[in-house]
């Protein structure tokens, strides 16, 4: 976990008191100096600058005017903004919770599988993680198009009434994008959970079996508690991923039809680079960053809280 990693600092060896150890740590600083300089210049300095930008009104060209917290106070009253964050909620469910549930179900069902050619299946199931989002978007744009395979299949199995232009439909465009997340995320969660289940000592299952536990009991009392860490990781990654959705929307719908599929990152891009209102764009960036951090902390807390 990201937060847990930061907490791990305490485990570093205590700084040595000897002159040699001190010399070594100056030497260490020399080793990290260049990476550190890149990092401070490319990540930390702009991070602070974004906070600063967010208090100004600026079109990117003429001088900026200080507006205090106005970019934040008017934030939610802008209909576009409210819509974009509303869409994120839908995407969080579809990118995060559905792959979690599906992955959990399939990993459990397959936990005792001794299928031949496992690595072949793994290769296929993990493939969406490796493909660039642009290609994923183009693939699905085709699948969803009015004369695309999805509609063809619906026609063939007698569900022709359901045929539509999936990504051009005000109601269906957003869930259709969400389904792409389910497709792409599910292999990742399943393999993560399978690895977690394999790490559970088999004696635990044997003992449970002797006590007359059935598969539901195994799932509820052994598998589910053991996978808490993996579930936290999967949720943190998929939920922050959903919040940051950009490539997929940019390539498939550009936020349309109307504003039915806008996301905060898409608005940020438009406000920063297409139709500059840089202060507002920066405020979106800050809100996204804060939300990401809150999500990570809350998920870690929930997971650790249940540990006690």
């Amino acid at each position, binding site marked *: *976990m990201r937060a847990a*990693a930061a907490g791990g*600092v305490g485990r*570093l060896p205590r700084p040595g008191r000897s002159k040699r150890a001190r010399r*070594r*740590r*100056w030497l*260490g600083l020399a*080793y*990290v100096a260049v*990476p*550190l300089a890149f*990092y401070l*210049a*490319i*990540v930390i*300095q*702009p991070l602070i*600058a974004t906070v600063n*930008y967010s208090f100004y009104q600026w079109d990117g060209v003429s001088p900026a005017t200080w507006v205090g917290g106005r970019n934040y106070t008017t934030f939610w009253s802008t209909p576009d903004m409210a819509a974009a964050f509303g869409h994120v909620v839908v995407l969080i469910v579809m990118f995060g919770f559905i792959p979690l549930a599906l992955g959990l179900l399939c990993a459990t069902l*397959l936990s*005792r599988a*001794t*299928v031949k050619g496992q*690595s072949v*299946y793994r*290769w*296929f*199931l*993990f*493939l969406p993680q490796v*493909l*660039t*989002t*642009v*290609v994923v978007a*183009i*693939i*699905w*744009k*085709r699948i969803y198009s009015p*004369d695309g395979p999805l509609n063809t299949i619906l026609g063939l199995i007698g569900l022709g009434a359901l045929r539509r232009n999936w990504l051009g439909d005000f109601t269906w465009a957003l869930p259709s994008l969400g389904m792409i997340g389910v*497709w792409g995320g*599910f*292999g990742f969660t*399943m393999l993560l959970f399978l690895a977690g289940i394999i790490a559970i000592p088999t004696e635990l299952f044997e003992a449970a079996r002797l006590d007359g536990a059935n598969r539901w009991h195994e799932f509820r009392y052994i598998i589910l508690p053991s996978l808490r*860490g993996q579930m936290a*990781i999967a949720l943190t990654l998929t939920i922050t991923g959903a919040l940051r959705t*950009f*490539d997929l929307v*940019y*390539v498939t719908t550009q936020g349309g039809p109307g504003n039915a599929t806008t996301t*905060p*990152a898409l608005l940020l891009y438009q406000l920063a*680079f297409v139709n500059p209102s840089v202060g507002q764009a920066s405020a979106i*960036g*800050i809100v*996204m*960053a804060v939300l990401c*951090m809150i999500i990570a902390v809350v998920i870690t807390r929930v997971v650790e809280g249940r540990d006690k």
Partner: protein
Amino acid sequence: MISRYERASNYVIIIALTVAVMFPVVWFLLTAVSPNTSGRLDFSHLAFGNFVTAWRDGNLASSMRASVVVAVSAVAVQTILAVLSGYGFGVLGVVGERVLFPVIILGMMVSTEVIVIPLYYELQSLHLTNSWIGLIIIQLGMGVPFGMYWMRATFRAMPQSVIDSAAMDGARDWAILWRILLPMARPAVLTLVLLEFMWTWNDFFLSLIFLQDPAKQTATVALSAFQGRHVLQVNLMAAGSLIVSLPVVTLYVIFQREFISGVMSGAIKE
């Protein structure tokens, strides 16, 4: 131990899942070699010429070169930075690490969107927008947190006695890193290189913002522009997509284990 019924059901589940995941990809593969521009599958003959046409019309020669230049140089330098910082934080210790280490780890939570706006205006004033160097520099800075964390964990997992005995033999810090630790760390470095390559090659957001000049564009951005222009030539779009995915997918064929374990343990370590 496992009944025949269960074994059979396992096969059914895993095959059904694989088919569900692969269906869109396979359909797309078939579209790419189909002569029909509307995207309807047509097996009257296989149109491998689609790849040639897509390569030419999609500006793929220049954009694939851009992607190779950016990805290869970014990965090379990122890896060096990762080794240096991992050795500093993991083995030598660093003055002020109680502050510096958490500050760098924080970078794993900082998403691109939050820093991209000032970066754009700053690089613009330095004339580094529409420049591969500018994009590479950004990739380098953003790669530091994960690289440092990954290599630090790798070096710390190595037996302290190896380092101690080398130091006893009078090996200097540089020799210990270069001749002893790095050879032992080769598998971890390989995984890091593969992940970094995948991330820079697959990047879209940064390239879109920082390389607006079509002559400088990377493959993912060129592909996105291509599909915007050629909505009516689905087979060419599919062929172009395959070309752009090919480098990473090829590596994934060869290094499947490294990719899967890297992404998963990378996620866990984050």
